[in-house]
């Protein structure tokens, strides 16, 4: 309800649910999604991210402009499309957010604790990670998703991610596959992509991170995973931990070859 209360207070009327012929409704909702993508304010977040990327911060008063996202210091073009990948300097597989965190601690000299104090923002104050994710991801538009899958640690991350996807635990005995396991299923009206299959993973992974019109917030993949585990009644996955990176690696490798067209705009 929190999501709606903001509008709800103003719009006293309840949001109506409209029964419609399923096929027509689906087509119209696709049209809606296309129209909101065309009229998306997502570029504002890319602008905010560019500012933060270039802003000197931390004890070293350094910007992130020398951050190496895998293609060399400061190279942004197509870098996001190739994440997660193995980084020799950290000796681990990293997704965008964990790599940004690495650069914040190494280049800017910030503590991990300080840099992760507020990783998920809100509509009034998006987080630094959210802005930066928008900016970096935006530089990969048109590039095919090609997460690392050759290094032994990349293969390991993929396998761990896959195992996590099907692992049932938590207070409600759920795995990712409990909801994202069979085709054609919905939670309420929301269709559920079967993300371990390439044809479903592709359009989804090609549009994260994303702006959500329902709450005017820019959301990252780390948030997406975090919020799934919240709803699955698990404890909280630690930000940028190997488990979260492994899941993203599994999903992105599964989506390999899809041209990136984010940051996306979602309902």
């Amino acid at each position, binding site marked *: 309800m929190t999501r709606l209360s903001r509008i709800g207070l103003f*719009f006293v009327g309840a949001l109506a*649910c*409209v029964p419609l012929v399923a096929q027509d409704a689906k087509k*119209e909702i696709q049209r809606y999604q296309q129209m*909101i993508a065309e009229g998306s304010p997502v570029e504002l977040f890319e602008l905010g991210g560019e500012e933060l990327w270039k802003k000197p911060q931390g004890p070293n008063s350094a910007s992130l402009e020398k951050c190496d996202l895998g293609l060399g210091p400061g190279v942004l073009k197509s870098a996001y499309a190739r994440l997660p990948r193995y980084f020799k300097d950290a000796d681990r597989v990293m997704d965008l957010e964990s790599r940004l965190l690495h650069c914040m601690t190494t280049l800017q000299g910030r503590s991990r604790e300080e840099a992760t104090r507020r990783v998920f923002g809100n509509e009034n104050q998006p987080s630094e990670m959210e802005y930066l994710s928008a900016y970096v991801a935006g530089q990969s538009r048109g590039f095919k998703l090609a997460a690392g899958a050759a290094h032994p640690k990349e293969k390991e991350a993929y396998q761990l991610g896959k195992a996590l996807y099907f692992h049932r635990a938590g207070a409600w005995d759920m795995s990712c596959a409990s909801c994202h396991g069979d085709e054609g299923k919905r939670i309420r009206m929301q269709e559920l992509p079967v993300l371990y299959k390439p044809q479903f993973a592709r359009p989804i992974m090609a549009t994260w991170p994303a702006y959500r019109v*329902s709450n*005017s917030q820019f959301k990252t993949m780390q948030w997406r995973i975090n919020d799934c585990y919240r709803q699955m009644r698990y404890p909280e996955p630690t930000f940028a931990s190997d488990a979260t990176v492994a899941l993203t690696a599994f999903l992105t490798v599964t989506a390999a070859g899809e041209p990136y067209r984010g940051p996306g705009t979602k309902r």
Partner: protein
Amino acid sequence: MDTIRRSLAAALGVLLVKPLAALAAWNNQAFGAKSAADALKSLGASTPAPSKEIAIEAPQIAENGAVVPIEITSHLPGTTSIAVLIEKNPFPLAGKFDFKEGALPFVKLNVKMGESSDVRVIAVAGGRHYVATKEIKVTIGGCGG
């Protein structure tokens, strides 16, 4: 809704204390109207003539009422103004766009809709008022996923 009205009045107050240079027109009466009929009256458009020359491009179904994209084009010669009213919103008038010499009578914007509703577009052309209507259904998504 009283609080909204009070604050709308307050908002106007803020505007009034600003230096005149920064003052721009904002039709307090039309935007404060609680029905489409009252808003139309305030716009001086009580009985607009239906017209097929006003094109409203919008989804039939909006998954989320927080963002409903609407694209409006008037093909009426000499169109000088376009107003958008969302019939069932507490304050129906969402916007009014005046086109001077050099602008085409076209606008695309995102609006909030509290529930399924008719969207009315009023165009002024040659000093006369015309109207076109489109119904937009608003559904609501899942449990936050």
